[in-house]
């Protein structure tokens, strides 16, 4: 809408719509014609203008900040915006993440997901309550982001691109608001409660003067109004939203109870006779708000663990332009293939490949590893890492939504896409449950109407309040969210929600060796040429063979000085082969590389380099154990888990390591197929297996395991296949993971048992007229509160009792 048009369609003074009757009554202010909604506004504006105070209109807050027309989302379709926030997927769909304000229960999730899925072109919608985040994918030819955002806004949630900053802001605002509402409700309900006690006491003592009684009743009415209208707003609005979309949520019975209770009391007050429930209504609001406030605190706390990796990126980048001169450009305009200079101490703006000389970068934000990592030309650099003390030059490989940074985040969010069955069920049942509650209350009223009309209303009110399924809806999601985020902050990413069901049942843990139990940073400890070639030449050949391999051994030989082997291929578990200058070389296990029997020249991990099957050099590789391997293994055994070591390495070091660490079972020289067979056999025996691995050759096994954990140094592919991912180097986090699994199951069960048990017991009592409305309010709120508080116990990550002693 143009500015001129908006000046004539909405009131210049107060912003309301201009009715047709007023359309002609324009005024000239600061050279523009403006219209008004009513004569009063027009006159006020005239007075202000004539007093020379038109600056007031410039001074006051921009109304334009909050336009209500759908046009506001047009900006989301701009290319610059899309580059930063929208990701193109390989299947032709595009996806983005939105931050939605105004969500607060499982029913909201359900509502948004269903509403958006009905839009043409929208394929997948996933809503995360704790982060108020909605992941949505759609067909770019059919729909546009602005349409989707308008649709979300139409059902009452404000969408904006997701970033942790915004999330935190909106969460803070929400909490401040809740706290204010809580304050009003707390103070007010206390006063109303006092009045109720007074009236009650008076009744006991044979009554008070009628005017006194009237005073107390009227005072209660006035005190209740701000509580119902202001503090009760979250519930009223939530209910209204559900009704408008024809999908009633948990707020509906709450709102109905509040409104009915209040109106009945107001009527009775006005009439001067009849029962009043101000105390019950206000206390209900106060207690529910307390629960909601705590829940909001918990959610904010939870999501803070997931730092926004996006926020790490700089706003601008310095690149070489076509003439080789340096220019500074906004991050959004950076393209793949650009050459970028990153000053010392600056954050890398994109994924890329290091050019020119060596560099050291700190990838703490990504991996939790606080030591700087040394990089050589040709190495991959990751956006979000911080450059060390030398400027570096890199070629951009990926920007925007394609960053590896984003992949980690997407993985982190994947967990909720696979909601545990129980949580899905709760989501789906919410609406049906709500309607059942309303019907039940109605029937209760009808029933009592025949038995004792005088009690029908308050008994129905009690049933309505008492049977609100809020606790049931909160029981599982609260626990899972809290548990996941607690792990996340400790550097352990859970990427599939189903993990929580499998974790407590684990009986066996299978480890890969290299890179899992050990550092995986393999170094060349010794070089022994056997033919006439020099050690340097042998290393160069080995390096050329290993170029492009992601096996940890490859790193030991450094970057190839020049040529790269042709026809090179990885033979999983054995080694690599390739052709250099017409000669075929093999590097790896001696039996693979060399024709005929050869024995390694000593103990340790030796690999052979052979030219056309002829041994030319031995390399001894060394790989240190992780610092916490021994302690972790011991603690896992304390927990009664059977441990297995499956290694592709053939050297006797596997056996030695297994004995040293006390492994129950070990297999060396295992090919991926062997590992898989081993695992399947275990599972065939009824074992539930957790697999920890890192390499490409572990992928089939990771996929087959009941729970799989990828190490921080794992290949990208392994990470995407694993259920969990260690972000840092500490193996001991496994203990926390396993124990958190056990505790989470326990707490979910407690919560469900409590919520169900409470409803089963309270409902018949309320229907029988044994529970007064105020008691129902206390019971129902306390039950929700208990569930939330119980789930919050998972915030603190504990180690199994054995590991702490």
């Amino acid at each position, binding site marked *: 809408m143009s500015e001129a048009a908006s000046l004539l369609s909405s*009131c210049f*003074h*107060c*912003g*309301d*719509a201009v*009715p047709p*009757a*007023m359309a002609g009554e324009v005024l000239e202010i600061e050279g523009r014609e403006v219209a008004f*909604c*009513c*004569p*009063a*506004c027009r*006159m*006020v504006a*005239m*007075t*202000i203008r*004539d*007093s020379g*105070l038109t600056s*007031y209109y410039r*001074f*006051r*807050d921009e109304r334009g900040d*909050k336009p209500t027309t759908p046009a506001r989302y047009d900006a989301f379709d701009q290319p610059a915006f899309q580059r930063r926030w929208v990701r193109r997927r390989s299947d032709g769909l595009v996806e983005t993440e939105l931050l939605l304000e105004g969500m607060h229960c499982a029913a909201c999730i359900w509502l948004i997901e269903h509403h958006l899925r009905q839009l043409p072109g929208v394929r997948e919608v996933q809503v995360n309550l704790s982060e108020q985040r909605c992941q949505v994918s759609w067909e770019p030819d059919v729909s546009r982001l602005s349409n989707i955002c308008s649709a979300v806004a139409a059902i009452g949630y404000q969408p904006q691109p997701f970033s942790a900053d915004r999330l935190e802001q909106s969460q803070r605002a929400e909490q401040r608001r809740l706290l204010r509402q809580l304050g009003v409700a707390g103070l007010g309900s206390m006063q109303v409660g006092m009045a109720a006690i007074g009236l009650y006491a008076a009744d006991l003592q044979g009554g008070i003067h*009628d*005017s006194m009684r*009237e*005073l107390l009743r*009227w005072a209660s*009415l*006035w005190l209740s*109004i*701000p509580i119902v*209208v202001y503090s009760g707003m979250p519930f*009223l*609005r939530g209910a*209204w939203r559900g009704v408008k979309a024809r999908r009633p949520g948990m707020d509906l019975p709450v709102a109905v109870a509040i409104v009915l209770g209040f109106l009945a009391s107001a009527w009775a007050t*006005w*009439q*001067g006779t009849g029962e009043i429930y101000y105390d019950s209504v206000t206390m209900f609001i106060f207690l529910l708000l307390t629960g909601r406030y705590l829940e909001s605190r918990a959610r904010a706390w939870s999501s803070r663990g997931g730092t926004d990796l996006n926020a790490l990126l700089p706003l601008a980048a310095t690149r070489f332009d076509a003439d080789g001169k340096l220019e500074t450009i906004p991050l959004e305009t950076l393209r793949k293939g650009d050459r970028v200079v990153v000053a010392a101490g600056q954050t890398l703006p994109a994924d890329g490949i290091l050019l020119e000389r060596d560099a050291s970068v700190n990838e703490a934000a990504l991996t939790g590893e606080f030591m700087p990592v040394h990089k050589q030309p040709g190495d991959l650099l990751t956006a979000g890492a911080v450059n060390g003390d030398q400027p570096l030059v890199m070629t951009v490989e990926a920007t925007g939504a394609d960053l590896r940074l984003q992949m980690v985040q997407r993985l982190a969010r994947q967990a909720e896409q696979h909601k545990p069955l129980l949580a899905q069920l709760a989501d789906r049942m919410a609406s049906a449950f709500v309607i059942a509650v309303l019907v039940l209350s109605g029937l209760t009223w009808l029933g009592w109407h025949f038995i004792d009309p005088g009690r029908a209303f308050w008994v129905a009110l009690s049933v309505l309040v008492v049977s609100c399924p809020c606790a049931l809806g909160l029981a599982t999601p609260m626990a899972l969210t809290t548990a996941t985020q607690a792990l996340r902050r400790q550097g352990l990413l859970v990427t599939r929600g189903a993990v929580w069901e499998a974790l407590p049942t684990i009986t066996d843990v299978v480890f890969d060796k290299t890179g899992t139990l050990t550092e995986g940073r393999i170094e060349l400890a010794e070089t022994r040429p056997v033919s006439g070639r020099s050690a340097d030449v042998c290393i160069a050949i080995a390096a050329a063979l290993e170029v492009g391999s992601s096996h940890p051994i490859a790193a030991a030989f450094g970057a190839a000085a020049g040529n790269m082997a042709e026809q090179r291929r990885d033979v999983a578990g054995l080694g690599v082969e390739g052709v250099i200058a017409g000669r075929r070389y093999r590097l790896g296990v001696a039996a693979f590389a060399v024709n005929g029997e050869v024995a390694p020249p000593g103990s340790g991990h030796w690999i052979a380099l052979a030219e056309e099957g002829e041994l030319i050099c031995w390399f001894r590789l060394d790989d240190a154990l992780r610092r916490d391997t021994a302690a972790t293994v011991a603690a896992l055994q304390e927990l009664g888990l059977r441990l297995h070591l499956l290694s592709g390495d053939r050297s006797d070091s596997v056996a030695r390591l297994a004995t040293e660490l006390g492994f129950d079972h070990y297999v060396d020289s295992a090919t991926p197929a062997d590992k898989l067979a081993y695992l399947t056999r275990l599972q065939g025996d009824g074992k539930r297996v957790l697999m920890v691995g890192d390499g490409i050759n572990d992928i089939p096994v990771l996929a087959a395991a009941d729970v799989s954990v990828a190490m921080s140094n794992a290949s990208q592919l392994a990470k995407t296949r694993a259920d969990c991912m260690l972000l840092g180097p500490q193996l001991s986090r496994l203990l926390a993971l396993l124990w958190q699994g056990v505790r989470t199951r326990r707490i979910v069960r407690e919560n469900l048992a409590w919520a169900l048990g409470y409803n089963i017991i309270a409902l018949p009592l309320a229907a029988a007229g044994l529970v007064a409305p105020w008691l129902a309010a206390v019971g129902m709120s306390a039950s929700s509160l208990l569930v939330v508080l119980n789930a919050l116990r998972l915030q603190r990550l504990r180690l199994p009792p054995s590991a702490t002693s």
Partner: protein
Amino acid sequence: MTLTLLGSGLLLGLMGSTHCLGMCGGLSAALGAAAGTQQRLMALAYNLGRICCYALLGLIAGGIVTGFGDLLQQWLPETGRILRSVAALLVIGMGLFITGWWLGVSRIETMGSGVWRRLQPMVRHFLPPRTPVDALLLGGLWGLLPCGLVYSSLSWAATAGGPLQSATLMAAFGLGTLPAMLVTTLGGQELQHRLRRPFVRKLAGSVLIGVGLWSLLSIWGVIPGHGHHHHAAHDAAPHSGTAPHAH
């Protein structure tokens, strides 16, 4: 009886003040901010002036209606009911205006524009207010601003049964608008945006419509309440018959 009177006045003010937010709230916030350190004092003075003005209007209107009402009563026994029905209709109209369902009632605002045009030079004298006394006087004049809400409340108050009762009711009305005005003066724009959301306005407007309808129905005896009194002069607020100690 006074309690009921106060109650209905407060209710009108409280519910109707969603309308004030756009009209005066932003302005008083701006003026408050301009006043700097004395912001709170200025806001209070401004609102005190406004409330006093309303009470004065109530006194005058109550006097006129009571006087003429008694006179008319002799010709037309239903005068009291008719007057109170008009008031109820105006309240309903105001509710419709606030919800945005029907804006016709704003036309009565034009009636007062002549008065306002004459007052404007005086208003300008106090704009922007520099001292609390300025603010007090500004508030007093501002109360005369042609405003549908004030007019409908005034018509309601005028039938309250006597000049003093009318003044009381209008003062209560002013008090009812106070929370909204203070909140916007001191709480700023953000809160104002919130209170002006369609949901809040629909709610507040609906309450007014409900009050108006209820009153209308009880005046004509459709629902129990009152409506059996024929003397406008002795009939208190439209709902007075319900309270045990109304008389």
